[in-house]
């Protein structure tokens, strides 16, 4: 986690200052980045999320690829395709966004438990989809954004269900038995960040 944070904040200024300002009125694609963090509020937890998205922007539309951390219940690294559309005609105003993609699990300590040498949880790649609306305000070369969204995250894992300590006839097997679990979390996501 610390390592990821360090890398994230080290890359930040590089990305910011590596950009060259483009006139807004020319209808051509240009590189665009979005860095944002926020709070996920669900039925069982309120926690943080951070995300960085890199892509291209043309007129009111932006499309890119993003990666971040979603710490809700089963932490993971969602890798998403992101699309964003500015609703007004001005550079400040409401925008809507959509994003989705695979969610790679982050095997934190609480998911590393073992029982008799067998991993209790085997985390699998799930998926995440999110849509929302936000507001952006240009400040110099940057834009400050804030948004509210609705996010669905599905986490998949196998959980050790039974360990046979004695032979059960006739199934004389010592193999652990796992059950498949799919946790679908529907949450509100509040984010704020900068775009450039």
């Amino acid at each position, binding site marked *: 986690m610390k390592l990821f944070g360090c890398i994230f904040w080290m890359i930040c200024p590089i990305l910011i200052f590596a950009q060259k300002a483009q006139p807004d009125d020319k209808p051509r694609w240009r590189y665009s980045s979005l860095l944002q963090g926020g709070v996920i509020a669900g*039925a069982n937890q309120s926690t943080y999320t951070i995300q960085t998205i890199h892509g291209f922007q043309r007129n009111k539309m932006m499309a890119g690829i993003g990666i971040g951390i979603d710490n809700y*219940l089963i932490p993971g690294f969602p890798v998403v395709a992101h699309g964003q559309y500015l609703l007004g005609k001005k550079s400040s105003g409401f925008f809507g966004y959509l994003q989705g993609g695979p969610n790679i699990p982050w095997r934190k300590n609480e998911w590393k438990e073992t029982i008799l040498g067998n991993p209790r949880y085997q985390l699998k790649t799930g998926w995440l989809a999110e849509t929302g609306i936000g507001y952006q305000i240009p400040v110099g070369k940057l834009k400050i954004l804030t948004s509210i969204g609705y996010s669905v995250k599905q986490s998949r894992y196998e959980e050790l269900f*039974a*360990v*046979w300590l004695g032979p059960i006839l006739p199934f004389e097997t010592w193999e652990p038995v796992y059950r498949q679990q799919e946790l*679908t979390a*529907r949450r509100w996501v509040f984010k704020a960040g900068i775009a450039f």
Partner: protein
Amino acid sequence: MYSLKTSFCFVLILTLVSSCVKDTLETTFTYTIGKPVFMLQQAVFDSMKNQSAIALKNPGKMFVSGSYIFLNERNKGIHLINNSNPSKPINESFIPIPGCEDMVVQGQTLYADCYADLMVIDISNPRAVSLKEVIPNLFPERLYGLGGGLDSLSIIVDWIVKDTTIRSKSKLSEEFPVSGGFLFNSPQSFASFSTGSGNGTKSGKAGSMARFALSHEYLYAVTQKRLLALNLSNPLKPNLTSNQSMGWGIETIYPFQDKLFIGSNSGMYIFQLSDPANPKQTAIFTHATVCDPVIADEDYAYVTLRSGMACQGFTNQLDVINIENIYSPKLVRSYPLTNPHGLDKKGNWLFVCDGRDGLKVLDASDVGKVTVKKTIALKDTYDVICWGEVAIVSAAGGIYQFDIKDVNKIALLSQIKVTL
């Protein structure tokens, strides 16, 4: 105006879509259901005679006696294999004994377990064996409860097995990850004993995984928590002389001279047989919680420690223990292995079934420096008996026999294959 209207619509849609914030957990679990097939007790006893040979499916422990190999088909019965010619063993017949896991042969009598009972079978004519005596409830831990007790006149002879998948969906409303996960014993885990005999007797020889042992005209049996002694002076009428509690986790028994070496998942017990009717514990050598078959000679005990689902622990090694003073056994040295199971010794050579690695031949001429001389690749080796110039090995593929006259030129003599 347009953007405001659009924004309003968007928020409205958003609100409708997200009418509830919730976490749901969908569970898919596939498990095996076993439906027991019952047979009347008397019919089971009547059927305990030679039947046509059947193919090996799930071979267990072995006992070698004379020119015969008695091979347990786990929980089904015993294969009688004529081994007059180890290069061409003949699977002659099968004695159906439901719930059988162990057996020993003393003279012309076969002793085998049938769940909680001990069967005494006359094998003076191996082609026409007959049940002579049933000692009931000697191993009560092996009775099936099945949640409600059993009709004492019925015996489970088979299981109808089928896989079932269930799916359930629930609202998650508790701390996550949810505490729990299940860790439980099987229905009869209180009873999972088996039998076997230790080193060579005048009658025969069992493997080191055995739970029955013959010594001084006594049959010694260990359950998961007790040591039993039965007087065999009248071979067809065994008489229980001792029933000692030993604590939990007893696994194997190996007799040598006037001692019994008992492997448990926490250590090795040594019992003295100065009074064979009533063995006396002299010492215990403790180790980490693992499974540990043991063999011994005059001065040293050789214990293989292995980990696994049933055995727990994380230790896989061979321990050589000095037992010159049986009141104070001392570890000489430990040697790392992969997943050692049964073992046996011929001269200075140790034969160790090292699980998936196969059969390992170790030079134990210097117990302080035991080295692997040779590895014979076999899948999931389980137990080995050195019988004269032949090593008989049970493994996933069946029963293998090797010529071990010269350990530098170990040759496969025969294989009785497992048929699935």
